[in-house]
């Protein structure tokens, strides 16, 4: 008889969309910018960038 644990691990390893555990202790990060330097660099590189057509709005 199979146990639940190997099935879960198998699901985790085979699925592209992962099994994500929702952890209430992480809620405090929702409105917090954790990597401000990275965001600033991205904003600078995107400032005048021409974004490709959104494929989901045709």
């Amino acid at each position: 008889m199979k146990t639940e644990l190997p099935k879960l691990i198998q699901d985790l390893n085979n699925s592209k969309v992962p099994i994500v555990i929702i952890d209430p202790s992480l809620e405090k990060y929702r409105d917090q910018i954790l990597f401000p330097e990275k965001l600033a660099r991205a904003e600078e590189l995107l400032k005048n960038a021409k974004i490709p057509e959104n494929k989901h709005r045709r």
Partner: protein
Amino acid sequence: MKVEKYQLKSESNLTTFEFISEGPRGLIRKKIQFQWTRTPNLYNLAVGDTNPETGEIDDMVVSNNADSEKVLATVISAVYAFFDKRPGAYVYATGSSDARTRLYRMGITKFYEQIMNDFYLYGQVGDEFYDFEVGTEYNGFLAQRKFK
């Protein structure tokens, strides 16, 4: 391509994720954040370590924990989870240095087949985005989920 991944945890909005890297340097708590930018519907992907002593986030550290492929596969799986909730969004990524951006490109190349199957992927040169090509240098990368 089947590669091991770490277990992901997230807050309920699926924009900030956490996982624990395991390797010769011990257990390293890593954060992944999809950051809202000034460009509508476009999120910046950022990854970094949590300093175990101060609790602060360090986005410049090189972990050297001998698990880079597993870490990369975990970050890509977080991208899938993020797009699953926001199918019309764009995700942008650039390194904190040119060398780090080259590492990102090498990582994308490693997972090229899977990525091209599931995402529209563009490489940035200056202010233009082009269809991603292996072997080309880019300033940044932009992805949108394909749904068949």
